[in-house]
């Protein structure tokens, strides 16, 4: 049973360019999106039990290759990186299309795992959209997953309840952080990982047309990034700490809040 894990590289630290309002990626280390690590951990434990091969699939610039090594060191067998300028600026739909195109090319994929959301944009869209492109069921927000023959049994973590569902394989599952504790690879694991393959594919290798990927393949656009407007008139309290706190305490008392 072969498993694919969709992985995104996110900046280790979120910093914003204060004039442009864009995310700073330069000079900040890229790491595997936190809940994608949980997805990799799940894949590795399933492999230990059921066998098969684990492929990491990602899209991004060349340096994502280094980040993927961490996932290979955790126990994945190989990685595929979609790496092409024309893919840049993709929204979730164009990203999902590219990821699904790769997955379709891999042999006998029975299970696709994704993290619930990414730490940098957090839309939660990509999992269900990849599932749709693959024409397979999706099971989201999973905290526990068992494979029983040709079926999965998954426990979903919802707002006030847990829902356990069964679905036939192949299927796509998105996992929440609580599902497991991702292992820390040892130096030896990392050394071994450097011998594993990361295939870099460009859009042409995948038969992706320019208007299907990147900005052109993305129906949504960000038109403006702006600082939020002041919603309230903020009374700035100034003076010594004692003066500030006694005047605040008095105001709160007179409003009946204390």
């Amino acid at each position, binding site marked *: 049973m072969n498993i694919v894990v969709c992985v995104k590289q996110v900046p280790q630290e979120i910093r*914003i360019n204060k004039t442009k309002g864009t*995310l700073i990626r330069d000079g900040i280390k890229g790491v595997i999106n936190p809940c994608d690590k949980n997805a990799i951990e799940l894949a590795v434990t399933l492999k230990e039990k059921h066998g098969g091969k684990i492929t990491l699939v990602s899209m991004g610039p060349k340096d994502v290759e280094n980040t993927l090594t961490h996932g290979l060191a955790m126990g994945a067998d190989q990685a595929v990186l979609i790496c092409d300028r024309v893919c840049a600026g993709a*929204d*979730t*739909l164009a990203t*999902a299309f590219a990821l699904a195109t790769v997955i379709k090319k891999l042999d006998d994929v029975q299970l696709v795992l994704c993290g619930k959301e990414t730490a940098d944009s*957090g*839309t*939660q*869209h*990509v*999992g*269900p*959209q990849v599932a*749709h*492109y693959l024409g397979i*069921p*999706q099971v*989201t*927000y999973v905290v526990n997953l068992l494979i029983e023959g040709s079926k999965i049994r998954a426990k979903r973590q*919802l*707002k006030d*309840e*847990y*829902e*356990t*569902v*069964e*679905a*036939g394989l192949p299927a796509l599952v998105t996992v929440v952080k609580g599902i497991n504790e991702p292992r820390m690879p040892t130096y030896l694991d990392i050394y071994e990982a450097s011998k594993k393959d990361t295939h870099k594919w460009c859009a042409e290798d995948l038969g992706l047309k320019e208007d299907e990927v990147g900005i052109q393949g993305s*129906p*949504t*656009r*960000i*038109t*403006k*990034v*702006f*600082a*939020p*407007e*002041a*919603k*309230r*008139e*903020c*009374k*700035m*309290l100034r003076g010594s*700490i*004692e003066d*500030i*706190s*006694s005047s*605040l*305490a*008095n105001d*709160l008392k007179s409003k009946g*809040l*204390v």
Partner: protein
Amino acid sequence: MKEMDRYRGVWVFAEWKDSQVIKGSLELLSLGRGLADELQVELSVLLMGDRLGGIPEELIYYGADVVYVIENPILERYTTSPYHRILCDLIRENKPEIVLFSTTHLGMDLAPRVACELKTGLSAHCVDLKMDKENRQLLQICPYFDYMATIVTDTRPQMATVQPGITSPPRRDDSRQGKTVRVEFKIEPGDIKIVEVEAKKEEDTEKIEEADVIVAVGRGLKDMRLAEELASVLGGVLGATQPITEAGLLQESRMIGQTGKIVQPKLYIACGISGAGQHIVGMQNSGTIVAINTDEKAPIFKVADYGIVGDVSKVIPALIESLKG
């Protein structure tokens, strides 16, 4: 006529629980009503489920012009594929220009898959919706770290998931008239079978959603005991930002914001919190908001009534003194 101009009308996908429309869906009716009036089109609501009783009428009382009702035992509890199928078919047939969902587990499971089949854009966690009337383009405003981003969609329908708690439900008016359209579908059970549902046991006995006073802790506060003491003097409870709960300093049930809870206490004291959009959506409707932060440019001050620029580890002890005195 351009293909885009064939799309008219605003749709809201309504969710219900225990025979009642959920609050997040009622809030969508507020937003949807406003958009429909601006565009001079109808506001339609999509309602799926089983034994829906008086819910369609309720939706009309809350502002719907048309309620599409699909009732079937298979739809009693949500599973992706039947809901997805029906929604895609109805959208293709009726061509609404806008379709809104609430950011719930159901909405976030369903909307992306529908957008994918329709090859249209979807934005997530919107905190405001505005209209570019001339182009009939929906301006979808989402938190973007310390900033806000406006997202638009060049295809139709324009789909968005909206954060609960960003507006109030509309006034209920039981004299309002509207149309209920019952749609028959041949419905297949789909590829997912629900085998068990169990209620979550809350380990945390204090419910921050119900508290009158919240002392909220951010990364700027190093000593949790100070916050505890302030909360106890005020008879309040502790809340937190995501980095605090992720570091395990407080339980996840205390997280406030987009991923966490939406709270509306009478008094909210933000201690060392920067005020990221994802946090603000969870607390901006609180009664009185006090913010303590060393950085006078921190965005939290934009939603606060009282601002104190200072070191929270010094301000809290002084405030405790003044409150006791």
